[in-house]
């Protein structure tokens, strides 16, 4: 019966699913470019905006200012205070999300076709006339301070923040974008106004829209939305100099299960070897239940609920990261197994069978991402941020297919560095000592 599954598989693989995604580039009369997928089957539009730079544009000594500014965008604008703004948004059944990350500030909106004009007017007010009133600043500042305090007691956050401190030197990537208790306590309204000017400018905005809207309507919409923003913002931060010593850093924390993050230098998304690295990682630790790490650490030994590795290609640095959690008395063994798998793959690469399975997964999973207006709008802005061509979706799987076993073996040898792998372990692990300071 196993054979029959094999036959079905082979037959199906001849017909890979293709996503029909027709992207139009829309030039607004005011000179902004947006990517659009027009689909009138449901009467609403999903809109995604990204302002490149994000929290890495925090000014010196003002860590947390972009994050706090972004959180305040939904707290009142124009002649509406925070509560009036929320009520107006509810009365239109629209929803806005504002979020700061290390590389961008994102604005996610959805609105019903029949409410488009008042919804856009409301979002425009949030982007161009936010109130930043004293009461809202204090209220949201309190929330951010509470998050910072919680993160300080959360093993996952402690591990990530410790790793970043080790890896990124004096770059903004080295610290949490939330800021510290001290830096956030000291932020003033002027700091928030400055942060908004630094980040929210027309020279760094990327736009994706999907749904019930024509190109002409979208052009007019983005001019109304973004026409009043300043032309330029702050200069982009420099690239980060990634220095990962390799070894183990233990952060003592009283909890029964240790959390570990691990990482080494990574690979850029525009590197010619990126897809070989992507396939390699899928086999090593990216492929959920089927990866070597999952198989060795969870399936064979029951040392963890989950172990994963992932390529992190940020705007200003690349790292190759992973994570695992195990009881304090078992984490040392989990780490030993992970290191051994890292070394094994570095030396021998992967097998043809593994490569084929990884290719089928990665090419087959790609069309499944395009399954709703909001997910597609997200992909559209992501592609623009990476500088990908507008026809990329149609060619991407060919790039995956073109990778050979020899490519992966070479890239595994060049990329994977078992000695350079740095573990940060938070907990009270037995049989593990710090080899590197944090």
């Amino acid at each position, binding site marked *: 019966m196993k054979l029959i599954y094999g036959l079905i598989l082979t037959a199906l693989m001849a017909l890979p699913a293709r996503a029909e995604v027709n992207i139009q580039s829309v030039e607004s009369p005011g000179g902004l470019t947006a990517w659009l997928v027009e689909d009138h089957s449901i009467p609403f539009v999903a809109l995604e905006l990204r302002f490149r730079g994000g929290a890495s544009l925090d000014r010196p000594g003002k860590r947390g200012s972009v994050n706090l500014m972004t959180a305040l965008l939904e707290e009142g604008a124009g002649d509406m205070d925070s509560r009036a703004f929320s*009520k107006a948004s509810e009365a239109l059944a629209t929803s806005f999300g504002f979020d700061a990350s290390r590389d961008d500030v994102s604005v996610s909106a959805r609105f019903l076709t029949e409410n488009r004009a008042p919804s856009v007017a409301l979002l425009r007010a949030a982007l161009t006339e936010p109130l930043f009133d004293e009461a809202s600043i204090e209220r949201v500042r309190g929330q951010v301070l509470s998050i910072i305090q919680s993160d300080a007691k959360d093993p996952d956050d402690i591990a990530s923040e410790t790793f970043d401190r080790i890896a990124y030197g004096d770059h903004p990537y080295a610290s949490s974008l939330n800021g510290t208790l001290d830096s956030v306590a000291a932020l003033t309204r002027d700091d928030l106004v400055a942060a908004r000017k630094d980040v929210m400018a027309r020279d760094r905005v990327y736009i994706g829209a999907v749904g019930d809207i024509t190109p002409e309507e979208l052009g007019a919409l983005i001019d109304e939305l973004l026409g009043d923003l300043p032309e330029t913002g702050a200069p982009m931060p420099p690239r980060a100099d990634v220095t990962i010593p390799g070894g183990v850093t233990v952060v003592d924390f009283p909890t029964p*299960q240790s959390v570990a993050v691990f990482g080494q230098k990574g690979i850029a998304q525009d590197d010619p070897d990126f897809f070989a690295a992507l396939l390699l990682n899928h086999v090593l630790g990216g492929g959920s239940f089927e990866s070597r790490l999952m198989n060795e650490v969870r399936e064979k030994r029951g040392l963890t609920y989950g172990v994963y590795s992932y390529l992190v290609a940020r705007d200003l640095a690349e790292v190759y990261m992973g994570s695992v959690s195990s009881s304090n008395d078992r984490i040392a063994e989990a780490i030993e197994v992970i290191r051994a798998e890292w070394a094994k793959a570095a030396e021998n690469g992967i097998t043809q069978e593994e490569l084929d399975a990884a290719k089928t997964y990665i090419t087959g999973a790609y069309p499944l991402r395009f399954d709703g207006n909001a997910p597609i709008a997200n992909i559209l802005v992501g592609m623009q941020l990476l500088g990908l061509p507008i026809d990329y979706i149609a060619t991407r799987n060919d790039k995956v297919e073109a990778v050979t076993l020899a490519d992966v073996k070479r890239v595994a040898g060049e990329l994977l560095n078992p000695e350079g792998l740095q573990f940060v372990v938070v907990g009270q692990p037995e049989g593990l000592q710090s080899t590197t300071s944090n």
Partner: protein
Amino acid sequence: MKRLQLLGAVAALLLPGLAQARDNEAVTTFTLDNGMDVVVVEDHRAPVVQQMVWYRAGSADEPKGSSGVAHFLEHLLFKATDKLESGEFSATVAANGGRDNAFTSYDYTAYHQRVAADRLELMMEMESDRMRNIRLTPENIATERDVIIEERNQRTESNPGALMSEQMNAAQYLNHRYGSPVIGWMHEMEALDLDDALAFYKTYYSPNNAILVVSGDVQPDAVRALAEKYYGVIPANPDLPERLRTQEPPQTAERRLIFRDARVAQPYVSRSYLAPERDPGAQEEAAALTLLAEILGGGTTSFLAEKLQFDQQIVTYSGAFYRGASLDDTTFDLVVVPAAGVSLREAEDAMDKALADFMETGVDAEQLDRIKLQIRANQIYARDDADSVANRYGQALAIGLSVEDVQNWPDVLEAVTADDIMAAARSVFDKRQSVTGWLMKPEVTQ
């Protein structure tokens, strides 16, 4: 303030158009001869399909002393069957570009895969196979038991809030299995064995205790043909037990507990009240409680946020939650996170004072209109996510609701009046049926 009134007027005009939104939901339902229910949710915009199989069996159906066995079995269904090697199920899904997983709750266990639409048959072939044919070894049991223990470590033991919530549930339910955690108590998990897992499997895994939900780029007729071919041939289990559980006695004493943990960064107050759930053909009170939770704690315009976060600024967060999709009595929950320098006692008193004020002033008509408008709009937005529609049906059918109950739910919500909401509030806010928990740092000894 003017602008706000204008927007309110716009909203009122919108209501008639939005009322038809639900008619566009492309849902087909039928039942196979062996009793297996089937729901098909069509969405032809992307060549994707999701298959889910829900079993009407969750942690609250477990035998006493075997807490966690429903979830343990869920893990074990990814091991070998007569036809597949251990791990081959997920490997085959992945080799087809898909993802699969499963989840367990109090009232159900569900397995799901998401793949290209032309791979549905293979998914059904494999999923129907493991409904009856798993083959477990002692090694599977030993290793996977370690995995679920690590899962409990990760989800619960590492999280003071989760640990307190477990204690609160245990205090809330005097006689019902909802008082035991889905993942299980650690000491009972450590003792789970092959016989426990197989006994649960044989009792509950059968087509007459399952619901197939397929969503995405599929035609109902084609799904029916495949379902008959793969699931229709499995005989119904004639010995499927009736779903009877021990019920709660009258609850007559308010319960309070304090949970202390050195890892607590942000203390808070949590309160749960025993509350009725959605019942087949009788969802009115649950609908009123659903709206009550929105009104009291559904966001920054809610009553508690207004009073406690904006006016008094005594808490940094407040919320109200109600989960009506439950087979037996559920809970209505409140939480407040005190602002810096505010004690838990002060925060709780402020919460109780706000509740008392709400019982005096009643429902704000404009707020209720806005919430109902959003409910209608969400039916449009939901069409962008066929999988969430699928989830809604699977969950409802798994807790004993009918397809009609699911389809009537928006109308039942729509029909709720301010008086209904206040009546539900008077009934649910009975301290004798409540548990109040304080999550705190350890006491500092002088």
